[in-house]
């Protein structure tokens, strides 16, 4: 069992790294980029009986800080 967790800064939380990437892309001539948000991908190898609820609990308690971040889970 595997899970992939995406952690992103919430909308409305300034993402200065994403902004810096956007500026760099603009400076390189990629003029169609209107916004960049940078996040994290966390891959988990899980025991066969692990559930999405287990991963949700991991996200709530450690993998994401829900004050500033949102997360999504893909079970594979």
């Amino acid at each position: 069992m595997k899970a992939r967790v995406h952690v992103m800064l919430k909308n409305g939380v300034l993402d200065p790294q994403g902004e810096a990437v956007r500026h760099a892309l603009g400076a390189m001539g990629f003029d169609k980029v209107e916004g960049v948000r940078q996040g994290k991908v966390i891959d988990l190898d899980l025991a066969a009986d692990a559930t999405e609820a287990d991963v949700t609990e991991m996200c709530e308690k450690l993998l994401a800080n829900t004050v500033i971040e949102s997360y999504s889970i893909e079970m594979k």
Partner: protein
Amino acid sequence: MKAAVVVFPGSNCDRDLAVAFEQAGFDVSMVWHKDSVLPEGVDIVGVPGGFSYGDYLRCGAIAAQSPICQAVVEHANRGGYALGVCNGFQILTETGILPGALLRNAGLKYICRTVDLQVATEDSVFTQGYTKGDVLGIPIAHHDGNYFADAGTLAALKDQDRVAFTYVQNPNGSLEDIAGILSENRRVLGMMPHPERAADEGHGGTDGTAMFRALAGIVATA
């Protein structure tokens, strides 16, 4: 008067914080992150600056789950005093003892210099040695000191006079120039600037000394 200073792998201001407490008259013990209890009779817990667990995942995230942090949470819930400086502030927000979070500095740079810090309230054991509006010279040294909280939390902090310190010139993008905040019972302070680095003539400034002296005075009479 007993203080305990928590030491995580990657802490680097633990000894400075211990010395500042000692010079104010505290009996200080160092507590390892794997310990699950604080020493008997501890009045205040210091959570020091540094890079606990290499800042992996998020600053303070893994430290907040360490055995000793559970004890620190219980200490705070019992009404015990705690001071989190820099990474210690990040850890206290990650434990939920203090609200909000510390984001990457808006300018993306690590900043290490002495800043002008304004005392925003006298109404705490940490700040009662100052006068509201005083401007202190206190060093900062951080990459993730950009205080963020949702609008409701910010409003509550302001309504309850829980902003302890603000930056005169905001170095990192913190909302409302916030540099340090108090818990609801005003017994826990988290701040990004380092008062323990301005607590001895040899530091080039002693504006932090009044905090440790005031703490010692209150705890002694409590």
